[in-house]
């Protein structure tokens, strides 16, 4: 075998190996999700079957119908949970982004004493584990009588999101050249106008991503929500998942169906946000 042929063979083997590796990796990543979707569509008998039924014999939307038909018909108050989740997530996202824009702009555009220390300090408030945070917060909320209300949850989630929102938005404002706003000011804009006319439109895609990220954090949060919510007044979807568990049994099919309902908005939003998200996380942190 001459040298050319063997080099070609090695290259082809490497390409095939790469394809196979990529395929296997993607399979491992996607399999759990596919399995959940599949399980939500097949009857409980098939899920429980022994030996296992790999190919579903019949697909049905019974689990979804049961879930949305309300209490008493084998369902849980999903619509209430969904509404709570939506109200709490959207409101706290809007507030967190507004505060985050102010903070991010301050970090990106001004020099002041103790700046990096302050930045790290902000980050550290985010490291407090949800469960450790929930103890004192539970106590304070109980005292103020805002436990099991939307207000209490929104307040907690705003605080949860501010540090990360500031990090992201800081990164996006750094990407906007300083000169542009300065040019606008020389042309007669006030700083306020320069911000809204020049810098904000340029940073808008990034800020939208920060918003989506904040929304997802609220949408998925469990440790705080499980302690600060009590009833259909404020329970969110992640806490609602627990409704499908009884002491010794779990309604897997119903749970899978609810999981799919939870994942679809998250999936759509993450798809929209993916490109900007990485840009924002890395630009501020790498280029300093």
């Amino acid at each position: 075998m001459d040298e050319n042929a063997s080099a070609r063979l090695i290259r082809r083997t490497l390409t095939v190996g790469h394809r196979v590796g990529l395929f296997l990796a993607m399979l491992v990543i996607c399999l759990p999700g596919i399995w959940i979707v599949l399980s939500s569509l097949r009857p409980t008998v098939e899920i429980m079957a022994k030996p296992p039924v790999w190919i579903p014999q019949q697909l049905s939307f019974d689990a979804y119908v049961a879930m949305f038909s309300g209490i008493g018909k084998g369902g849980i108050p999903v619509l209430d949970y969904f509404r709570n989740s939506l109200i709490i997530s959207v409101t706290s996202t809007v507030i967190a982004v507004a505060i985050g824009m102010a903070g991010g702009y301050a970090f990106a555009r001004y020099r002041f004493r103790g700046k990096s220390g302050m930045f790290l300090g902000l980050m550290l408030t985010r490291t407090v584990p949800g469960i450790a945070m929930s103890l004192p917060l539970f106590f304070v909320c109980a005292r103020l009588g805002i436990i099991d209300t939307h207000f209490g949850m929104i307040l907690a989630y705003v605080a949860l999101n501010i540090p990360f929102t500031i990090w992201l938005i800081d990164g996006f404002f750094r990407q906007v050249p300083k000169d542009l706003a300065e040019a606008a000011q020389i042309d007669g804009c006030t700083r306020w106008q320069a911000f809204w006319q020049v810098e904000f439109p340029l940073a808008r895609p990034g800020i939208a991503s920060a918003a989506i990220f904040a929304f997802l954090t609220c949408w998925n949060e469990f440790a705080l929500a499980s302690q600060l919510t009590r009833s259909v007044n404020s329970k969110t979807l992640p806490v609602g998942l627990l409704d499908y568990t009884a002491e010794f049994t779990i309604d897997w099919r119903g749970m899978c169906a609810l999981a799919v309902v939870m994942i679809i908005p998250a999936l759509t939003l993450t798809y929209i946000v993916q490109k900007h998200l990485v840009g924002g996380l890395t630009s501020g942190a790498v280029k300093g």
Partner: protein
Amino acid sequence: MKGFKPSAPILLLLPAFVVLAAVVLVPLLLSLYSSFTPFRLTRPETFFVLIGFRNYISILSNPDFWWAFGRTVLLLTIALNLEMLLGLGLAMLVEKATRGQRILRTLMMFPMMFSPILVGFQFKFMFNDNIGLVNNALQSLGITQDAIPWLIESHLAFTAITIAEVWSSTSIFAILILAGLLAMPKEPIEAARVDGCTPWQTFRYVTWPFVMPFAYIAMTIRSLDVARAYDIVKIMTDGGPAGRTELLWTLVGRTAYSDARMGLANAMAYFSILLSIAFTVYFYNKLAAARAQIGAEW
């Protein structure tokens, strides 16, 4: 106060500080105080009794606490290292792909969309000894006849939790390292190849230093919410069997809400907070160092 004018950045940061002070700082101070009391939720009057460091002494002399602490550190060490390695591998696989980059990148981010509690349920379902996907597959393939008690035997349960944790967080590393690989200039690699570096040397001395800051960003972000593992463990095993997968966070939750011993739980919570802060500060410093290192070259 005439003539006092706060500077613009302070004014801009004020709302953030106010909210964080109200929701994070004040409750934390309160919990610091209550960690010095024998406070029980069921008996409010105990909130005003000071007992000094007795809570701290009792947790420090409690072997269960130290087991949970050690287990938490072990889980984080294993999980973070695995996530880093797998993330790096995944990022390099995807970067090499010639077609379908966009779809691959989206698929890669798939686990990031799962709420940790969902990850917990999903893996509890898959690792179920009777009807779980994993056991079904192993039995159908004839690898084993018996149902492997994934979530019931203590070492297997720990393994299962680690797998769930790694599955859910590898994509954060992968996506950020991929960003690093894509942002990297191509000339140094070509120069290294022309100079006769082996692929391994090229990777070790050219690619890796460039990608490192991105890996540390991922580490910093991950260390911001290492406590995600709480949700996963809470659902998958709830600390069982017999406390063998109990982590610091599940122990705090159990002491506080099941035993209603808030004072004791707050003392433990402070340890978990210190642990998280230590992780974050460590990686933040590493990030700064890595940034300074490539700063000159960029």
